[in-house]
Structure formats: structure tokens, C-alpha cells
């Protein structure tokens, strides 16, 4: 099998070959490292490449050869969003203020990856502290969309999504506070899953907005996402908000869905407020076609209304900055990270302020100041307090929508990938990219983005978002895998098979 073939296998396929002994983890890891080396100068999806990947892979191979019982993804390489703490690699969250910082501990999800014997390839690029929808707010330069290098890969997890789309990793971890897994998924033609809030541990994930953040899989297929979710999910006593319930096998759910090929009796709710004006025409067309495919497969399409979703962005841009302003206060140059001493010295207050001035980028400063405002005396009730009430209203909207539908659907992003720099100077326009993904974060429900086809006008990927009630993540994997299979049948190919070549002769 050529290296080019190896990197085009899905994680599930690769895992099968590893288990069957048809391929070693070292071979697979080497194929990915070579690919990274070849395309990274153009894509910039990684901030750090692990020096230990081949050693880790070799250890998996030898343990497998020694007959050790290994998990289903053992030996499969994985890319890790730089928001997650890794004991053996720098963790910067895309910020200058943490340049070179190596945490003394692993995030729970990272520890679980290692226990399941996956092979960490490196850390992926992201908007600074996950604030952004384009990965242009990374302090280490933007990541480029493999579909068109002049375009953004989405954000904040553009590095993870681009790494998957550019075949620089078979699996990646992302984090999703308002769409940072799903929106990059949509614009890169990959699969992204934001689990139910509390379904995956946040311990060791550098916090943006604690009540919204969730870690989740970024992959090429729904089954791959399910396999990875099975590894990282489940209760963690180090995260108080972690749900203690037992979870079903998501991989089983995805396999069931892919095998059934039918959506008989599935009520699919189209959220009226998550479409229409402001959505790119090709996105709307692809969405309509996806609905047709689902209906043909037996789904019952119903329109549902969620009237308060209109207020979701406003509530989100109060809650997120408020929580972030507090979460980011720890970056003060005392215990870790960069320190800037003003000319002529100064008090610790001056040093902290100078460090944060130089260490934070403009979007981080904007949101920290906004959040400080929203929480300050006299404004709390009008802003933060009101936003938390909107959250209640959005949860109620979800509750009534889920009385009428088993899953809710919408486009995962209002447009295809836009050009680098296009929205950098217009924060409000940038914020609108997450219009469809934010409600799920506010309510804590799971949301998944799967490829929905290429927009006719620009040939760029679009994404379909599926949402389910809290704790019903398995339903998303089951339905998502069915829809994925149906759509690929209707196109006759997978979306990622159409990614343009990034290096000569390799595609």
C-alpha cells in the first residue's frame, strides 16, 4: 500500500489494517509525518510536531506483536488542538502569552488517548484562546483551507479541520464553544462533533467560556468521530460539570446508522430561524437537497420554530466574553507564560498590564474588555443576567422543538469558506459565522456537522448540522451515519475525495 493510500484511509479502516497486521503503526505514522512535512508549509495547520510519534507507534507495534490486547484505535495517529494540555508538547492555545509553555500535566482527554494507545502527532493551530471563526487570530499565523489556500479553514479549530482535510492526520481533537468544531468542519468538508455539555471532560482544556466549552472529535467520517468519542468521553471526577451517567457505544450507533440506510420514522426538524436571509445561496441549495435525500429515505421533515434563537448570538457574545474575561485573568506573568517588564521596571501591576498588552492579540483584548464591561457593577443585570435568561428561553425552544422532532437540522455555517482577511476588520460580521452553531452551546445539546456537498457557485464544501437533545449523542451518530451514507450515495463519492492536490503528483 502506498503512503498516499495509507493517509487516505479513514481512521476505522486504518485501525482494521493495524489490527489485522497488514500495516504497522510506524508505517502509518511515518506516512503522516511525511505528508505533514510536504504540505505543512502551505497549510500551517500544526503549531508543534511531536518528536515522540514514531517511538510511540513502535511501542504500540511491539505490544501488539507481543499479543497485548489493544483498544480499537491503538496505533492510529491523532492531532491535538493546542487548547489541550500535553505534558510532552508545548501548549499555547494559539497565544503569544503562552509561547513555549509545557504544562506539567495532561488534559483528561489526552490521558485517555494515550491510555487507548493512539499516537499523538502534534498540536494544531487555532484562533488565540479559541476566539474566532477563521484561525486568523492565531498568534502563529493563519491556517489555510486545503480546498483553497487563500481561504480560511474556519475557526477556532481551523488547524484540526485543515489537518484532517489535508490528510495530515486521520483524527483530531477540537473544542467547541460556539461552533469551533462544527463550523470548521463545514468549510473544510470534514466531520465535527460537539458532544452534550458534560459528556467529555474539560479538565486540561484551556478554558474560554466554561459553561459553553466542549471537547470533541474532528474526523473524516461519522464512524471515526464515534470511535474517538468512545475513547475520550465519559465521566471525569476532575470536572465537576462532567455527567456521571454511563454512555452507550457511539461506534455501535454509527455502524447501525450506516448499515440501515433508512430514516424511516425519523422526524427531522428544520429550524425556521436557522436559514433564509444571510445564507449563501449554494449553502441553502445544498441544504434543500440534503432534506430531499433524507425525505426519500423515509424521514418525516417538519418545520419547527425556535423564536429565541434570534437572540442567541447576542446572549453568546455576553456570556462568552464575561466568562473569558475571568478565565483569562490567570495569564498574568507570575506562574507561567511570558513576562513583559515595562521600560524602567515598574510595579507588579505594571508588569501584568504590559504583559497582557503585548501577550494578547486584538480579538482577545476586545472580548476581555467586553466581558469586563458586561460583568461590571451596574451592568450585570442588563447584560450578563439577561443573557442567562435568554439561555433559559433557548433551552425552552429546544425542548418544544424536540417534542416535534427527533433531530434538528440546519446548515452548519451560513457560507462557504471566505477569503483570508475578508472579515478581520469587522468583528460583527465575523461573529455571524456562528449563527447556526451557537444555540447548541447555550443549551448544552449535542451538535454534529457532516459534509453536505459542494456549493455550486464556488465549488467549496458546505456542512449539515444535526442536533439532538442533551445526552442523546448516540442518536446523532446513528442518524448522522445514515445521512452521511445517503449523501455520499447521491454524489457517488465522498467530499474529501475532491480536495485539490496540495503537492504535485500526490493526489
Amino acid at each position, binding site marked *: 500500500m502506498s503512503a498516499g493510500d495509507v493517509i487516505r484511509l479513514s481512521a476505522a479502516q486504518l485501525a482494521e489494517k493495524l489490527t489485522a497486521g497488514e500495516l504497522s503503526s510506524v508505517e502509518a505514522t511515518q506516512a503522516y509525518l511525511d505528508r505533514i512535512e510536504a504540505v505543512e508549509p502551505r497549510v500551517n495547520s500544526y503549531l508543534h510536531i511531536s518528536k515522540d510519534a514514531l517511538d510511540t507507534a513502535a511501542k504500540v507495534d511491539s505490544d501488539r506483536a507481543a499479543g497485548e490486547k489493544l483498544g480499537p484505535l491503538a496505533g492510529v495517529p491523532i492531532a491535538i488542538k493546542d487548547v*489541550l*494540555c500535553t505534558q510532552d508538547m508545548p*501548549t499555547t*492555545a494559539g497565544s503569544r502569552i*503562552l509561547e513555549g*509553555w509545557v*504544562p*506539567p*500535566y495532561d*488534559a483528561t482527554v489526552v490521558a485517555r488517548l494515550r491510555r487507548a494507545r493512539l499516537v499523538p502527532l502534534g498540536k494544531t493551530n487555532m484562533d488565540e484562546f479559541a476566539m474566532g471563526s477563521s484561525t486568523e487570530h492565531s498568534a502563529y499565523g493563519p491556517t489555510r483551507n486545503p480546498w483553497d489556500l487563500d481561504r480560511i479553514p474556519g475557526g477556532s479549530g481551523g488547524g484540526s479541520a485543515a489537518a484532517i482535510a489535508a490528510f495530515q492526520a486521520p483524527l483530531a481533537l477540537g473544542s467547541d464553544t460556539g461552533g469551533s468544531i462544527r463550523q470548521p468542519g463545514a468549510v473544510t468538508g470534514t466531520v465535527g462533533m460537539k458532544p452534550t455539555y458534560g459528556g467529555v471532560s*474539560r*479538565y*486540561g*482544556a*484551556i*478554558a474560554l*467560556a*466554561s*459553561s459553553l466549552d466542549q471537547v470533541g472529535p474532528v474526523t473524516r467520517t461519522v464512524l471515526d468521530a464515534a470511535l474517538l468519542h468512545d475513547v475520550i468521553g465519559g465521566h471525569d*471526577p*476532575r*470536572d*465537576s*460539570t462532567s455527567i456521571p451517567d454511563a454512555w452507550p457505544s457511539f461506534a455501535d450507533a454509527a455502524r447501525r446508522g450506516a448499515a440501515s440506510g433508512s430514516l424511516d420514522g425519523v422526524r427531522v426538524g428544520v429550524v425556521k430561524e436557522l436559514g433564509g436571509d444571510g445564507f449563501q445561496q449554494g449553502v441553502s441549495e445544498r441544504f434543500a437537497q440534503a432534506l430531499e435525500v433524507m425525505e426519500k429515505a423515509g424521514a418525516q421533515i417538519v418545520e419547527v420554530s425556535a423564536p429565541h434563537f434570534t437572540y442567541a448570538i447576542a446572549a453568546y457574545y455576553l456570556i462568552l466574553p*464575561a*466568562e473569558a*474575561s*475571568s478565565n483569562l*485573568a*490567570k*495569564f*498574568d506573568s*507570575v*506562574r*507561567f507564560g511570558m513576562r513583559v517588564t515595562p521600560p524602567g521596571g515598574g510595579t*507588579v*501591576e505594571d508588569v*501584568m498590564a504590559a504583559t497582557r498588552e503585548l501577550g494578547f492579540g486584538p480579538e482577545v483584548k476586545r472580548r476581555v474588555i467586553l466581558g*469586563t464591561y458586561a*460583568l*461590571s*457593577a451596574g451592568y*450585570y443585570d442588563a447584560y*450578563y443576567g439577561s443573557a442567562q435568561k435568554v439561555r433559559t428561553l433557548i433551552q425552552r425552544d429546544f425542548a418544544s422543538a424536540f417534542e416535534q422532532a427527533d433531530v434538528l437540522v440546519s446548515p452548519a455555517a451560513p457560507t462557504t469558506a471566505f477569503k483570508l482577511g475578508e472579515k478581520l476588520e469587522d468583528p460583527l460580521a465575523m461573529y455571524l459565522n456562528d449563527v447556526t452553531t451557537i444555540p447548541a452551546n447555550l443549551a448544552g445539546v449535542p451538535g454534529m456537522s457532516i459534509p453536505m456537498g459542494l456549493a455550486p457557485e464556488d465549488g467549496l464544501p458546505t456542512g449539515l448540522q444535526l442536533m439532538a437533545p442533551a445526552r442523546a449523542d448516540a442518536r446523532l451518530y446513528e442518524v448522522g451515519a445514515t445521512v452521511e451514507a445517503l449523501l455520499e450515495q447521491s454524489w457517488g463519492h465522498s467530499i474529501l475525495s475532491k480536495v485539490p492536490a496540495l503537492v504535485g503528483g500526490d493526489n
Partner: protein
Amino acid sequence: MAKPELMDFDKAIELFEPVLGFEVHVELSTKTKMFSDAPNPANDDGHGAEPNTLITPVDLGLPGSLPVVNGQAVRYSISLGLALGCSIAPSSRFARKNYFYPDLAKNYQISQYDEPIAFEGSVEVELEDGRLVQVPIERAHMEEDAGKLTHVGGATGRIQGAEYSLVDYNRAGVPLVEIVTKPIFGAEADAPQLAKAYVSTIRDIVRALGISDARMERGNLRCDANVSLRPRGQEKLGTRTETKNVNSLRSVERAVRYEIQRQAAILAAGGTIIQETRHWHEDTGRTSPGRPKSDADDYRYFPEPDLLPVEPSLDLIEELRAALPESPALMRRRLKTDWGFSDVDFQAIVNAGLLVEVSETVAAGAAPQAARKWWMGELSRTANERGVDASTLATPQQVAELVALVDAGTLTDRLARQVLEGVIAGEGSPEEIVEARGLAVVSDDGALIAAIDEALAAQPDVLAKIRDGKVQAAGAVIGAVMKAMRGSADAARVRELILERAQQ
């Protein structure tokens, strides 16, 4: 700094009504911290650990780390709330108090704001003359302690003038309960002693509950005292100051008295009181101005998103209520009867703030009279000389051990005093000091008999007098023997041996 003008205390009380308020922070002695599983330096196991050894990523506020509430700390807090006569909130929440300070790892403190675990209580406090006063409690809430700063350079190790500071986060995350009173009216001239009696009562309560070591010199119990004055007949409360760093019972009393005298002088001269924090200086017996209250005090409280509400069941609350020890007032009544002390003797112990020490010494095996003697005598005397609380000088266990050594005849009273000096100097346990200093009573009768024979030879008529029935004549010989033995003899044994010789 010019020495501020003070008004005579009685005069101040004549012109103004003092209104008090207290915020007392109690460090809980759980095994682990409030939000992490690091060892807790507020108990004896963790006390005095090397800097930055009792920490996890949570206590350092490392990126990605998350707090998890210590269930035992919650139970302790509920018990304390109940002992303060408070209602326990069916649902309470943690909140973030945001401010930048280098000892605060996350630059926010996890505390409780609008939904504290306990609220609306009352504590009965006994004044020196036995009068009982009810101090109204507004709330008791859970929070975490900050780390410790050491200021280096500059004259005195104070923050002003220091070149740089060093931060140790061992104390960061120690579980605290902050007890906040309502304004306390009507204390009048008793205000200073009420302050001391209140803090002493809180200390007794948390010790009886066994939820804190409550050693003020270690900072297990810290008091901020709020004082304001209003002219007689005025309805509106005066501007208050908050005096921090009041870390002994003695200081609480002195600081309140000082603030009353200081504020009265300013007000009487037509000045205004600035709302500010002030710092108590044990050495000078004065308070100095700290930070004025400003909009920098905009703490931007909001519900802590990393933690969930605390909703204790009625069953748990009733279980903890049933397990409460007797109140300090009841305990006082019981101990007075048990010990059989006179009113005067007993009240003296209470007023000295040593009731807990004496009762713990008795619990450790000493007779009540002996326990009282050491605490009210030698230890109180030394404490007064040094301007500290007697409880800082020795532990009840050490005093009980000392009493046991005297009871066993190993030490005379005089030797015991020397041993106690060693205890105060931190030389170890009484037994260790006896050993190290070679202070035990000479129990070898041979050496005593030799000394007695020598003394009798020098005073040949004594034996004859004793044989004639004039037993008191032995006194002169006993004195000579004790002198020869340099005090390391048991006088009663010497007397016995002299009488034995007389029989021969």
C-alpha cells in the same frame, strides 16, 4: 507619619455611639483543600511545609485546571452555620470574585456572593462581668484562601518599600468560612471587650466543632474589625473603617478601642472619616491607613461556571445538627460545675480567653486546679510580658504532660517552671526537655540521705528537737538540703527521710 490624635475613651463614648461589625475568616482543618486534593496546610500535617509543595495544577491556577468541591469542607461549613444559629440555604452557589493580586493564582477568588451556605444567625457572647450579649450574624460563606507573599528588600518586610516579592501558593485554596456579622449596636463602652469576647467565642465554637485548629498566631482564625461612630442622637450610621490583620484576641480588643478613640478625635474636630481598610500594628498599638475603597473594588461577581449548586438535604442538615457539640454558653455552665471553681476563679479563665485551653488540658488528663494554675499563672504572666495570647505559648497537651510529671514526682513545682520555659522556647515536649536539661527530681534516696546527714551534722540539735516532738524544726534542715541539691529534690521526700532518721 505623625501620631494621630486620640480622644480619651470615656469621653469618646460619651459623645459617640460605636457600631461594630466583624468579618472572621476560619481556616478549616480538612485533610485537603477546598477545591483540590492537595494537602491542607491549615492542619498540623501540612503546617510549615516547604514553599510550593502542597500544590496541584488547580492551586496554581494552571490553564485547563478545574476546581472540585471538598465534600467534607461543605459539611464543616454547614455545622458551623448551624452552631452560629444560622439557617442553611436549601440551594447555595459559588461565585467568582475577580481582582488581580499576585497571591491569587487565578486572579479571581472562588467565594460565595448572593447565595451563601448559611445566613441569619446569632451568637451568644459573655462579657467579663458575666452579662450575655447576642451578636447578630448576617451570613457565613465558603471560599478559598490565597497564597502567601514575602516582601523582600526595604526596611521591614512590609509591602511599602520592598524591592520584590516572593509567592508561595501552599496556602492557596485552603478552605475558609467567612463569618459576617450584622451591625452590632449598643455595646457602648464595652465595645472593645465585646470584640474580644466575640472572636473568642467563635474560636471556642470552631474548636468544639473540631473543624479548625483556630490558632490565631498561625492565621487559622483572622478577624477584620469594622468600626463606625455616630454622634449621640443621630440615626444615620457613620462611615466605617475596616481594620485588617488583627491576629490575636488581645489585638482585637485594642484595635477596636484605638479606632473608637481615633475616629472620635477626628469627628470632634469637625473632620470626616474616610471609608478605607486600615492595618493594625501590634508593635505600636496603632492602625494605619490602607487602601481607600474605590471603583477598583468592582469585583465583577458572577456564578462560578465550573461548579454546581450546593443543595444539602434536610436529612444531612438534621444529621449535622444532631451532632453539634454543646454551645459555648452551655459548656461554660457545665465546666464551672464540673471543676468546682469559685465564680471569681472561673470568670477569670473565661475573661483571659483560656477556657478552651484549660478544658483541653483537663481533657488531656490534668486536674482542673493544676490546669488553671499553669494557664492563669506562669503562661499568662509570660504572655502579658510579651504581648501575645497565652494560647500561643504552649499547647494543652504540653501543659497536661507537665502536670503529669509533677503528679508523678518527677518534677517539683520549681523544676516544672523551668521545663515550661523550655516548652515556651520551643525546645520540645516536657519529657524531652526534662531529658535534655537533666531537670528530673533526684529520686535516688542515697544522694538525699548523704545531703541530709551532712546537714544534720551541721545542726546537731535538730534531731533531738524532732525526737522531742518539735517536728517543725525539720524545716531548717530541709532548706539546707534543698539548697545543697540546687532545688532538684522533692521537699516532701526530704522531710520524710529526716523524720525516718529521727526514728532510728
